[in-house]
């Protein structure tokens, strides 16, 4: 057998290799005297790239829930927020406001994933049997409730200030440009590994069952599949991924506050998913890249347009809306989505 035979063929395996390579190179920079230099013009791109990697984990989880299983989750940000707060509270050394327990950060990160998963499980237990639109209301309401809790329980969550003093493991190892590069490599690597995992899951018979539930739950049950179990699993996996994204965000940002976890996050990842094409993992990432890229481009455009920042922000929203309208009109399944796979009329 030649080496070529051993090379992975599927998208999933390529993502896994790329992800591991990113993590490896990231580790190389972090633990050796090797340093990176960035032209200052690239800073903004790297920063948006880091945020894209984090939001990428969110959109992959959402795609597992909505794209494959058909669960309408309009409150995805809540799992992101809960993961971030859990990680921040457990690992913050000393915070100006709110709780700071000072445990080592890996414990905080693990707790972020677990707490988000537990919240997902609790929501599933009460609401996963609900029909699509009702589940949407429940998740939306949950997100709003938690947002209000984070703002108002100042003793615990630090109110509008949030929690500061969260350790930044990468910043502790390297500084400056290298820190940015390592962060991008590590978070991008985690997102690629996530992509590999969800791709494997949905390419396996497991994914076939999820898509059958999306198509017709009663038929799927009549064929001997315990659909409640599958729906709960898909929901909890998506929640846990969002918790992981939240924990990593807290450890990258060094602080959490309610302002980072508004409904805007949910809206961004939903638009990204629908734009790219639900039920196609790479497409939802591409859709998210388009929507986040648009923001980045508009940041530069602001400098050359003769309008004020406020006006420009409104124009940007209008443009995003128009793009969404155009996609729904001409490509209802998303740019790379399969209309027959999603059962949308064209």
């Amino acid at each position, binding site marked *: 057998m030649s080496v070529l035979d051993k090379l992975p063929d599927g998208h999933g395996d390529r993502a896994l290799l790329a992800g591991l390579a990113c993590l490896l190179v990231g580790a190389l920079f972090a633990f050796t005297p090797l340093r990176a230099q960035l032209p200052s013009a690239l800073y903004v791109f790297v920063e948006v790239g880091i945020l894209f990697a984090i939001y990428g984990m969110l959109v992959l989880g959402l795609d597992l829930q909505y794209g494959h299983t058909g669960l309408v989750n309009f409150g995805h940000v809540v799992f992101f927020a809960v993961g971030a707060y859990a990680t921040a509270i457990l690992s913050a050394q000393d915070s100006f406001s709110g709780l700071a327990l000072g445990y080592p950060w890996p414990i905080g990160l693990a707790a972020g994933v677990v707490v988000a998963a537990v919240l997902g499980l609790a929501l599933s237990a009460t609401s996963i049997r609900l029909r699509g639109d009702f589940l949407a209301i429940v998740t939306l309401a949950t997100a709003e409730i938690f947002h209000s809790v984070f703002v108002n329980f100042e003793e615990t969550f630090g109110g509008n200030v949030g929690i500061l003093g969260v350790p930044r493991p990468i910043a502790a190892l390297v500084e400056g440009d290298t820190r940015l590069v390592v962060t991008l490599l590590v978070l991008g690597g985690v997102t690629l590994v996530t992509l590999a995992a969800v791709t*494997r899951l949905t390419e396996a*018979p*497991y994914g*076939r069952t999820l898509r059958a539930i999306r198509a017709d739950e009663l038929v799927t049950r009549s064929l001997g599949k*315990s659909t409640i179990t599958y729906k709960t*699993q898909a929901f909890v996996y998506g929640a846990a991924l969002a918790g992981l994204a939240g924990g990593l965000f807290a450890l990258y940002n060094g602080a959490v506050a309610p302002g980072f976890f508004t409904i805007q996050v949910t809206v961004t990842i939903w638009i990204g998913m629908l734009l790219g094409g639900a039920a196609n993992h790479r497409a939802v990432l591409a859709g998210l890249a388009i929507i986040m890229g648009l923001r980045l481009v508009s940041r530069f455009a602001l400098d050359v347009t003769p309008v004020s920042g406020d006006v420009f922000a409104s124009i940007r929203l209008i443009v995003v809306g128009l793009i969404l309208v155009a996609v729904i009109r001409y490509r209802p399944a998303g740019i790379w989505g399969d209309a027959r796979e999603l059962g949308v009329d064209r």
Partner: protein
Amino acid sequence: MSLLSTDGLVKEFGGLRAVDNLSMSVDDGELVGVMGPNGAGKSTFFNCVSGVIKPDAGTVTLDGTDVTGDSPESLAHQGLVRTFQNTRELETMTVRDNVRLAAPNQPGERTIPALLRSSAMQKHEEGVRKRADELIEAFELDHLADEYSSSLSGGQRKLLELARALMLDPDILMLDEPFAGVNPTLTGEIADRIADLNDRGMTVVIIEHEIETLSELVDRLVVLQQGSLLVEGDPEAVLSDERVIEAYLGGDAE
């Protein structure tokens, strides 16, 4: 020996008694037809037996076990598989995937083997593919195997539903109007396949309006009216029974 039986089955919707104290049984290896005018409670009876809805009273016994109120998925594992009156294809999936989906005990339907791409999953899936392709070929759907099932005709959908149900290798197959909306040629073909399955030992219960095909096909006919058993027995005897004629034609037979 009776494979499936109901005893005193009752289901009410608001004030309407859709199934009223219905007791009947189906023997192992039998081919039974269930008929009755619209609203006689045939589909409700099917739904109660197959776990889609819970009966208000009475028991359902499958192979000596009380399965009253069991979920459809649990009944499917216990060997009772049903089809639906309005064919319910998984339209966003291909014909192939529709049939493959039904395969029982696939380890790849659990998270860890799916993530690890375990060899047990791959080996099992090979068997599933082979079996699914055999069924698709046997039902002459092979030229449509990679089509989305939304593009199938009514008759082809019925065939697909049958092939999919057989993937589970059921002990008892419950078919809700397998001939509805199917052209006469295909009706004959589906009937032949059902007879063939029954000859090979599968117990089959069919709801059908197409009386001619049904009476030729089945060993025994059961006629329901207003949720109760009206007449049952040999198809010819049942069809010439005055009460049946009256129920179907309405009013007096005189």
